[in-house]
């Protein structure tokens, strides 16, 4: 498992910007990318985000990992639209006696969706690469996301790493004892692994509760207090969103 945001250099100009500001910019850009009916804006957004990733020195391997799946999905959508949508024939292929027709208008529709995917993924990638999870959660509480949801998010994030280590130990032990040598044994082993993780989760939740109650927990966890917004950050963000809005309107 790779929590990709943990892989990059954390101290850079983007990580020092208030998480709330980054969230607001990201949401504004997402809305613009999703509601745009052309190629220019998503491509421009993706290019800006690519430069930002380079500027904050995101390792190439991490970058490729992050974008491989969305790029693959974008390619699938282009193919899907090319062959299944549209009227205007662009080319035809004969495979095993069946004629497959690629359509010009379908291809254009596919490209529109494909660039939208890349644009939107780029925005979220920059947000993920530049915002530590704790700050992200603090930002969510400022957006009035219900406290219960953020608490569950905090517990989950804290214990993903603990449980993942447990899962790795169990998986290696099962593998060493040929637990995955056949599909049938693999399924049985996987069920045992998942069941054991559930038991461990339950036990951890009990011990965590005892420890928290000893420290004064009464059912609600305190949230981070927010610092006031910095005028320079807010001004720059508003100008940036307005500039992107102008490109979006063109």
């Amino acid at each position, binding site marked *: 498992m790779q929590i*990709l945001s943990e892989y990059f250099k954390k101290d850079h100009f983007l990580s020092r910007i208030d998480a709330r500001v980054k969230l607001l910019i990201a949401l504004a850009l997402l809305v613009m990318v999703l509601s745009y009916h052309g190629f220019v804006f998503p491509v421009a957004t993706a290019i800006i985000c690519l430069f930002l990733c380079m500027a904050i020195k995101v390792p190439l391997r991490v970058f490729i990992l992050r974008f491989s*799946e969305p790029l693959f999905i974008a390619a699938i959508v282009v193919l899907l639209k090319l062959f299944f949508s549209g009227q205007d024939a662009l080319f035809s292929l004969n495979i095993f006696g069946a*004629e497959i027709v690629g359509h010009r208008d379908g291809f254009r529709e596919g490209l529109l969706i494909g660039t939208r995917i890349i644009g939107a993924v780029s925005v979220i990638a920059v947000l993920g690469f530049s915002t530590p999870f704790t700050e992200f959660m603090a930002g969510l509480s400022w957006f009035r996301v219900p406290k219960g949801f953020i608490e569950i998010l905090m517990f989950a994030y804290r214990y993903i790493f603990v449980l993942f280590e447990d899962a790795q130990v169990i998986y290696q032990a099962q593998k060493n004892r040929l637990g995955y040598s056949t599909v049938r044994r693999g399924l049985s082993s996987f069920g045992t692994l998942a069941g054991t993780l559930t*038991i461990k989760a339950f036990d951890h939740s009990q011990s965590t509760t005892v420890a928290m109650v000893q420290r004064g927990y009464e059912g609600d966890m305190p949230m981070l207090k927010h610092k006031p917004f910095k005028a320079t950050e807010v001004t720059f963000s508003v100008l940036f969103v307005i500039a992107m809005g102008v490109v979006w309107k063109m």
Partner: protein
Amino acid sequence: MKNDNSKKLLLLPMLLGIFLSAGNAHAMHISEGILPFNWAAVWFVVAVPFVGYGLYRLKKMSETDLSFKPLVGLMAAVVFIISCMPIPVPTAGTCSHPCGTGISGILLGPAISILVSAVALLIQALFLAHGGLSTWGADIVSMGIVGSFAGYFTFKALRSMNVNMAVSGFMAGLFADWATYITTSVELASGIRGDSPFMPLFWKILIAFIPTQLPLGILEGAMTAGMVVLLYKKRPDLLIKMRVIKTEEVAL
């Protein structure tokens, strides 16, 4: 001509099936940006009341049990890890990933399970690029709401007919997975169809998912059965606490 059309109808989804099943596909997650703004908003609107009800149930349950919030958080971590674990799909010759919402639906009930899925999906979207922020609503609807309810009701219905734990768990996992994939197909078809009619595209996407999702559903069923049986044998107290079984059932 008719013969040629029928060949084409079969051949094209097969080709797409090969594409969709290649590599480590997270086929259940709808990728960031794939849905246009209006459809992304629609699925958010559908998801919000369910998540709200989940939060209400969480508040009620945690009033009487202080360990309930940590437990739900930890279950979200388990669902996250399970849905990141690669399991082999023999027919596709590759690995795919279970949803884990069937089992959380059985253990925590559908309302809390929706919350668990929402949390796991948000972490995956932000840090692993599986799913997305704009498609979070759609992913909650397919994996969280439909998956959890399908798993929960299948398990409850079979248990009420005295079907044994393993078969009930298997069917719950199977239907949770397949119901999720049908809903994902609906969401994808409605989101990317443009001016094309909905139904033909829906069927094509549904058929294209078959090489991975049909066996994956069976694998998820087997995994869910394994989990439920393990808990029943080793820690029936957990199943009693989570109101999956009654105390008398263990005594039997």
